[in-house]
């Protein structure tokens, strides 16, 4: 392929083309890589169903709510409360203290009421509340 354009100029043009093609190929490789590594969105309905029998009066039932720890309890017969179990101080998971009828965070001693209100310690805000509805013998949370 003999042309009048000197090799160096031809090469420079070709390098620019290579740059463009390289960018496209990088995108062709990068996009699947990014999607592959991204967390997969949780499928299924946004509501979580828990059988009523699992939530005994006086005890708290911990469960997974869209990948995060949550808790549902029955402080009085027929009354249900669902809360995020993540302490609002620095993110540890709170524990239920049946004796004292309150939540206590093992990290820095933050205390919450059964309704999630801050009773003492460093937490700045109450535990996040989650909607809960009794449907037959299932608790629908979310």
């Amino acid at each position, binding site marked *: *392929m003999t042309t009048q354009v000197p*090799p160096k100029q031809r090469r420079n043009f*070709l390098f620019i083309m*290579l740059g463009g093609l390289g960018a496209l*190929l990088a995108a*062709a490789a990068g996009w699947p890589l990014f999607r592959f590594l991204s967390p997969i969105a949780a499928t299924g309905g946004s509501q979580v169903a828990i059988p009523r029998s699992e939530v005994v009066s006086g005890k708290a039932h911990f469960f997974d709510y869209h990948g995060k720890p949550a808790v549902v309890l029955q402080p009085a017969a027929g009354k249900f409360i669902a809360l995020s179990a993540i302490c609002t101080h620095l993110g540890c998971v709170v524990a239920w203290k049946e004796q004292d009828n309150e939540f206590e965070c093992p990290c820095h001693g933050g205390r919450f009421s059964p309704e999630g209100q801050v009773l003492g310690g460093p937490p700045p805000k109450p535990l996040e509340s989650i909607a809960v509805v009794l449907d037959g013998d299932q608790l629908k949370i979310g």
Partner: protein
Amino acid sequence: MSRSICCLFVLMIVAGWSMPATLLAADTVCIECHGGQEGRLGAPVAQWRTSVHAANGISCNDCHGGDPTDYAMAMSPERGFIGVPKYTEVPDFCGRCHVGVAEDYKAGAHGQAIERGGAQCVVCHGNHEIQRASLDLINEKDCSRCHSYERAALIRMSLVETDTMINKVGHDIDRLYRLGFSVDDMQDRLFNQRNVFHRTFHGVNVDEVRQKTAGVQGELGKINMEVAAIDSTLGERKLWGSVTIALFILTGVVFLLVRKAYEEDEKG
């Protein structure tokens, strides 16, 4: 308990992928003994080997009972040996596993006429050389043995479309399976519809067949939509794949052109 497990097992395999399983089934003492016999005692073995039952690991004892591992008890009623069923006992014999078919058969014209010589399972399907059921079992030669072919032709017509659909869906699912897609759910549903389809025919009632096949086609239509969705995804992948292949080839060519440009410098 073990009977219903056996039935379930059989039914599961009838649907789809025939997994050659002659390693297990051929190890029974039944085959070992009868395989070496002449005449009517030995003939069933060769026949059975060609059958869809053999291909799915169902051996003599699964239908006739008895102990397949113990020569002494192989034909003992204590171990459930039934022996050869009488003509009128055949529907119940096969119905131990093919439950739905037996039900519909018994309620239909053939089943009602069995005492008078009405066709039962073996008459159409054979006994040991049974092949996977197909529409060809309904044909002029076989069905006009007892009555005129008109009625059979009518039923066959009402089955053709659904049969073709079932086969096509089966092929499509197989194709996707071979590409690594998870098709278990679709396979199960196809299997169910095929069962409904097969059992309904055995009532030999055209109106019933038309009604039920409409339902079957509806369900098959849903599976078809899922297959179409996957095919569309495949098409998309192929498109982007082709673009990337073209990009690579183009890049390779550009690199070669660069090489050529260097070659000119090398010479000069």
